[in-house]
């Protein structure tokens, strides 16, 4: 049985959006935009890792004094950030001062850049789904 056209329009963007969230660049990779995918992955993942290297995994802090919007930006990099937050929740990785701030800036910027890529991938997927179904 054929699915309604509207459902087809939503399914591809949803899958692409989730892929792009789980792995930076995976959404574009699924849309056969390989060059974009590789560039996005090669830009966002090292930025996020640089933040973790400078400030340690302690910069992902859901329990301490870190504002909620920093964690919200960080988790846009990947749901794996929630796993790191679970590891650091016990307070075993304290980090203060400049390493903390630079680490948070790097990791949250990586997350916001991935959000830009998620939106772009979802938009491309929506355009393609409407073209293929003639919507």
């Amino acid at each position, binding site marked *: 049985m054929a699915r309604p056209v509207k459902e087809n329009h939503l399914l591809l963007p949803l899958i692409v959006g989730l892929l792009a969230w789980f792995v930076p660049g995976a959404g574009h990779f699924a849309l056969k935009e390989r*060059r*974009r995918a590789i*560039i*996005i992955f*090669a*830009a*966002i993942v*090292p*930025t996020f*890792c*640089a933040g*973790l*290297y*400078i*400030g*340690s*995994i*302690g910069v992902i802090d859901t329990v301490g004094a870190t504002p909620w919007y920093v964690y919200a930006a960080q988790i846009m990099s990947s749901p794996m950030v929630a796993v790191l937050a679970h590891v650091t929740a016990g307070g075993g*990785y304290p*980090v203060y*001062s*400049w*390493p*903390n701030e*630079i*680490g948070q*800036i*790097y990791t949250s*910027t*990586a997350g916001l*850049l991935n959000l*830009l*890529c998620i939106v*772009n991938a979802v938009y491309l997927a929506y355009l393609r789904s409407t073209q293929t179904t003639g919507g």
Partner: protein
Amino acid sequence: MSIADFLVIATFTTPEVIGTKPALMLWLLPLAASLAITYKATKLPTITPANFIKETAVLFAVITGLIIAIVLALYALAWLITE
């Protein structure tokens, strides 16, 4: 866990000692590069190596130039107020 795995993970469990020197501001350059690369990767209609490098370099120069202009303006303002 092998020794190699442990060494990789260990580098992410202790913060780096980066001091409080003015050169600390140079940490914004990799961030500006990452921003320029990602933005241009999403905005260019077709990506060719030459076109992508040129567009990214221009955006990186614009971001860096604007930051330097803001720094100079704030420095001049601070100098005018304090002198």
